[in-house]
C-alpha cells in the first residue's frame, strides 16, 4: 500500500500547495487533503484549540482532526523563512504550530514538522526535501526529480495567478484541469482585497467574498496578483520590514495598489484578534488616507461571522463609491 500523507487544507496550503503536490505525486506518495472547510470542521477546531487563537488557527485544528484517521503522516512543516529576507519570519502562531497541535490534540499519526528556513542558503529547500524523502524511504535522485517537479508546478501556479488575475483557488482548479483560465468579465471598479492567503481564499470563513464582489461588478486584486519584483520595490518605503512574511506581502501590496495601481477601493480582511494585523490595518488606513484618499474598509472575520452582515457591508461600500462617481 502506498504511504498516505495528509495535508490540511488551511494556512500555508493556499500559498504553497502546488509545490508539495508536485513533490509528493512525483514520489508516488498518496496525498490526502482534508475536506473543504465547513461548519462542522470549524466547530471541531474551535472545541480543541486554545480559546484566544484566531479563527484560521482554530480552523487548522479542525482540518488536522479531519485527517486523523485517514493518513499515515500529517504534513505540517514549520515555516520560518521562505525567501531568506533578514529579520522576516512568520507569525509566532506559525512558528509554534507543530507544538501547539501536539499539545492540544491527542492520538495523531506521526507529524512531519520539518523546519523550512530558507535563510540558511540557496539549496536549503532541496535539503529539506531530501530529509522528508528519507523519512518516506526515497533516494536522492528521485527526490531531486520530485523537487524540480514541485518547483515547476509552483511557478506555473504563481504565473497563472499573476497573468490571469485569478485567485489561488481558481489557479489550482486550472492546474488540476477542473476549469480553464477565465476572468474576462467587464468590471466597473477595481478593488484591492488585502489579507492573508488563508483568510481571503478560504471560501467558508471569508463567506466567498471574492465571488460576491465580482457579482457587484468589482474586479478583485489580491497581493498574490502582484509580481514579486513590484512588491520588493515597495519595501524601501517602509522604515523597517515587518517581521511577518505574509504581513509584508499585504503591506507592500497595499503600497503598490495605492501608489501605482490606483485602485478604486481597498478592503482589508482580518481575523479577529490577529496580532500582526492590528499594526498592518492601521498602517494601511493611514496610507490610504494620507496619499490618495482611497476609500478603505476593514472586515473582521471570526467563527461567528454571518454572511448577511458582510454582504450588507460590501454592498454599502460599493454603493458609496457609485454615489461618489455619480453612477446612481
Amino acid at each position, binding site marked *: 500500500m502506498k504511504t498516505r500523507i495528509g495535508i490540511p487544507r488551511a494556512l500555508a496550503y493556499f500559498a504553497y500547495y502546488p509545490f508539495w503536490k508536485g513533490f509528493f505525486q512525483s514520489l508516488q506518495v498518496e496525498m490526502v487533503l482534508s475536506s473543504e472547510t465547513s461548519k462542522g470542521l470549524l466547530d471541531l477546531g474551535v472545541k480543541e484549540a486554545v480559546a*484566544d487563537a484566531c479563527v484560521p488557527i482554530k480552523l487548522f485544528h479542525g482540518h488536522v482532526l479531519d485527517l486523523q484517521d485517514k493518513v499515515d503522516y500529517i504534513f505540517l512543516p514549520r515555516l520560518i523563512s521562505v525567501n531568506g529576507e533578514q529579520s522576516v519570519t512568520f507569525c*509566532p502562531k506559525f512558528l509554534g504550530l507543530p507544538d501547539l497541535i501536539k499539545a492540544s490534540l491527542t492520538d495523531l499519526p506521526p507529524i512531519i514538522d520539518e*523546519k523550512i528556513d530558507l535563510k540558511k542558503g540557496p539549496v536549503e529547500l532541496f535539503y529539506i526535501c531530501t530529509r522528508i524523502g528519507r523519512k518516506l524511504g526515497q533516494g536522492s535522485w528521485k527526490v531531486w526529480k520530485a523537487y524540480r517537479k514541485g518547483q515547476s508546478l509552483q511557478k506555473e501556479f504563481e504565473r497563472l495567478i499573476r497573468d490571469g488575475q485569478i485567485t489561488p483557488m481558481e489557479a489550482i482548479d486550472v492546474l488540476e484541469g477542473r476549469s480553464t483560465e477565465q476572468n474576462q468579465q467587464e468590471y466597473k471598479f477595481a478593488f484591492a482585497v488585502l489579507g492573508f492567503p488563508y483568510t481571503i481564499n478560504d471560501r467558508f470563513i471569508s463567506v466567498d467574498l471574492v465571488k460576491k464582489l465580482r457579482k457587484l461588478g468589482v474586479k478583485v486584486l489580491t497581493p498574490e496578483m502582484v509580481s514579486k519584483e513590484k512588491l520588493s520595490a515597495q519595501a524601501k518605503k517602509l522604515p*523597517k520590514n*515587518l517581521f511577518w512574511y505574509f504581513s509584508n506581502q499585504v503591506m507592500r501590496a497595499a503600497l503598490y495598489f495605492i501608489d501605482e495601481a490606483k485602485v478604486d477601493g481597498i478592503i482589508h480582511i482580518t481575523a479577529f*484578534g490577529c496580532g500582526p494585523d492590528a499594526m498592518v490595518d492601521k498602517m494601511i488606513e493611514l496610507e490610504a488616507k494620507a496619499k490618495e484618499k482611497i476609500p478603505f474598509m476593514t472586515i473582521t472575520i471570526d467563527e461567528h461571522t454571518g454572511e448577511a452582515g458582510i454582504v450588507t457591508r460590501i454592498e454599502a461600500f460599493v454603493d458609496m463609491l457609485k454615489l461618489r462617481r455619480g453612477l446612481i
Partner: protein
Amino acid sequence: MKITFPYMGTSHITFKYLIESLGHQAIVPPKPSKKTLSLGTQNSPEFSCLPFKILLGSYLEAIEQGAELIITSGGKGPCRAGYYGILHQKLLEGMGHSTRILIFESPFQNLFDFLGKIKSIIAPNKVGWLEFWGHYKRAWRKMQIIDETEALTYEIRPLECNKGETTKVFNRCLDLIDKAETVAEMESAREQSLRLLREIPVDNQRKPLKIGIIGEIYVVLEPFANLDIQVTLGEMGVNTDRSIYLTDWTKENTAFNGQRDIKKFAQPYLNEMIGGHGINSIGETVRYAQRGFHGVVQLAPFTCIPEIVAKGILNKVSQDLNIPVMTVFLDEQTGKAGLQTRLEAFVDLLNHKRQRMEDIAI
C-alpha cells in the same frame, strides 16, 4: 533636551537618573492611570495590545509636560513590540505632535547605528564616551538594587503582621534609592532598604503558597497593567516569584544560566523561538514545577501572539508536571474585582491540593 521614556514598573527611577546625569531634563511620565489608558485606547488600533495603548497614553501625557524626545527600544520580532516605536511615531504625527521617537535597536544587529544614536544624546552636552560608560554603570547598579529590594518584598509581604506595611516600607525604600547619587550612597541606600524590609514584623508560623509569575514582560513588570497582582497575591498570603526582572539579577545570583537553560527546559514542549517571552513562559513553568512551586500565573495582554501559543502548550505542561497554571489575559476592560475573585479561587484550589498531598504523605 526634555527627554521621556516608556513607563514600566520601577524602572523610571533609573532612567530618570541616567538622563539627568547626561545633562538632560528627564520628563517622568505620570504613573499610568485610567486617564493614561483611555488616552491611549482612543488613539490606538483596536486590536493592538495593552502595553501599546498604555505607552501611547503615557507618551501623550509626557508630551503635555513638554517632552521633546522619546527614547524607546526596538526589536527584531516576531513579537509586535519591535514595531511599536514606528507606529507610535506615525500616530503621534497624525495627531499633530512633532515629538520625535528615538528607537534603539539591538547593538548586535547594527553596532554603528546603536552607537550613533547614543552619540546623538550625549554629544550636545559634551559628555565623552568614558564618562557615559561611568554613568551607565552607576545607573545599572541602581536598577539592580531596586530589583533586589523589590524581590525581597514579595517574600516578606505574605508574612507581614500588619497588612499593607510592606508596601509602605517599600515606597520609602524607593525614595531612598532614588535620592542616592554616588555609588557609595547607593550601597548605603541598599543596606538601609534591605534592613527596613527585614525589620517589618512578620509571622513566621505561616507557610505561604508559592506561585510563579510568568508572561509578557510589560504586563508582568507594570503593576497598573496587571492590576497589582503581586501585591494582591502577597496580601492574600502568597509568596510570588517573578520570572522577569529588568536586570535579571536573580539569574546571576542563582547560578542559573539564563536564556540557554530556559530553552533547554522548554525544548520538550516548544522547539522554536516564537518571539516575546513565549518560550520563557514554557521554560519557566517547567522550572517552577521542578522547584516545587504550587502554581503558576501567566500574565499576557489580550491578543498577545507569543503568549497565546504558550497558553496552548502550557495546558500540556501543566498536565504532565502536575502544576496548576492560571492564564490572565489583560485588556482595557479587565476589572480588579473580577481578577481578585479568580485569584481567590485559584489560591483556594492550590491550598486544597497542598492539603491533600500532605494528607497522603502522612
